[in-house]
């Protein structure tokens, strides 16, 4: 017996759960979980904030942002500004 009903998520690309200092994202389109450890969660939370917008990410942060982008958790906006993908917190 299998179930193949599609997941409908018109308003968000991810569901997000904060567990301690970490964040787990559920990619609704792919049905995959993405774990953001403490460092990645901090970078991800800062995406889109005015503080982050005005600064150039340091090298380590840039590496984390690229990994987050590969997972679809952030997108590059206007060529330089990183913003979070649409999420719905549980």
């Amino acid at each position, binding site marked *: 017996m299998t179930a193949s009903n599609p997941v409908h998520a018109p308003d968000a690309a991810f*569901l997000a759960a904060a*567990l301690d200092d970490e964040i787990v994202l*559920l990619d609704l389109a792919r049905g995959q979980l993405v774990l953001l450890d403490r460092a990645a969660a901090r970078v991800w939370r800062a995406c889109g904030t005015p503080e982050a917008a005005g600064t150039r990410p340091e090298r380590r942060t840039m590496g984390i942002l690229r990994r987050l982008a590969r997972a679809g958790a952030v997108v590059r906006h206007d060529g330089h500004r990183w913003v979070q993908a649409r999420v719905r917190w549980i």
Partner: protein
Amino acid sequence: MDLTPVPPLDAGGRKAAKMRLALGSWTLHLAGPPSALPAVGAVLSGLRVDGEAPPAVTIALSSDLRSATGAIGTRTLWTLALPPSGWLGAVVGQAVATLANVLTRLLFIHAGAVAADGRGCVIVGESGAGKTSLVASLTRAGATSMADDLVLLDPEHGTILPVIIPLGVKAWTARAAGTLPAGREVACEGGTRYWLPDARAHTPARAAAFVFVGRGGLPGVRPLTRGQALLALAQHTSSLSRRHRLEEAFSGFARVLAAAQCLTIGGRRPAALAPSVLRYLRAGAAAR
């Protein structure tokens, strides 16, 4: 548990019987050879579903025990070829998988569970990783058995519901567990003994701990972050494997894990670590 003979199923003259199992709010109808049904009934009759009422399921075994079908009403859900040896385990596993598939509110995990001092502990691991031997060892060490194979969680209340299916003790499980906890054998087939421990939980327990049994690695009990635990749950068969329940399973498991202690155990004999796991569980109870 009623066993009612019905007219012959096949030209060979072998008769079939029917059995109705009232398992809390779930009804399971069984049909098949009279020689086989008592064993299926004995293994499944302790299972109890509370908290929602899944549709009644009928499992019919062929007269030669070579196949089984599962149905809801007239809708066939599955057909399964049965091995000559180990058919009982296959039927029980399929019954449990069917229940897991028809649940709408409760969450399930392919796992074992025990309770100690009112704290429930879910034991997750791949088949053959040592879940059953760890459940047996924990039960022998003073915990009560809550589940083997199928764990049901009530996400609303953060509790583990007792699902009493006898421990399926294979030869390697018996070797790993050493002495089995006090109890009785309710069936034996295909080299598996179905062992019902005396110390069984009858009421829900708070889901206080999740223990992930790895294969190999350094022996010992180590803490796991809750985020890692949620990710690890997704690697095993659970409600998270059911695409149509993904969102609610994610939310439910995250909610339950947020209030639980998460551990991982390594080494070749997880059962040997039962005293350490119990110490963790009891230390958590004392700290509350």
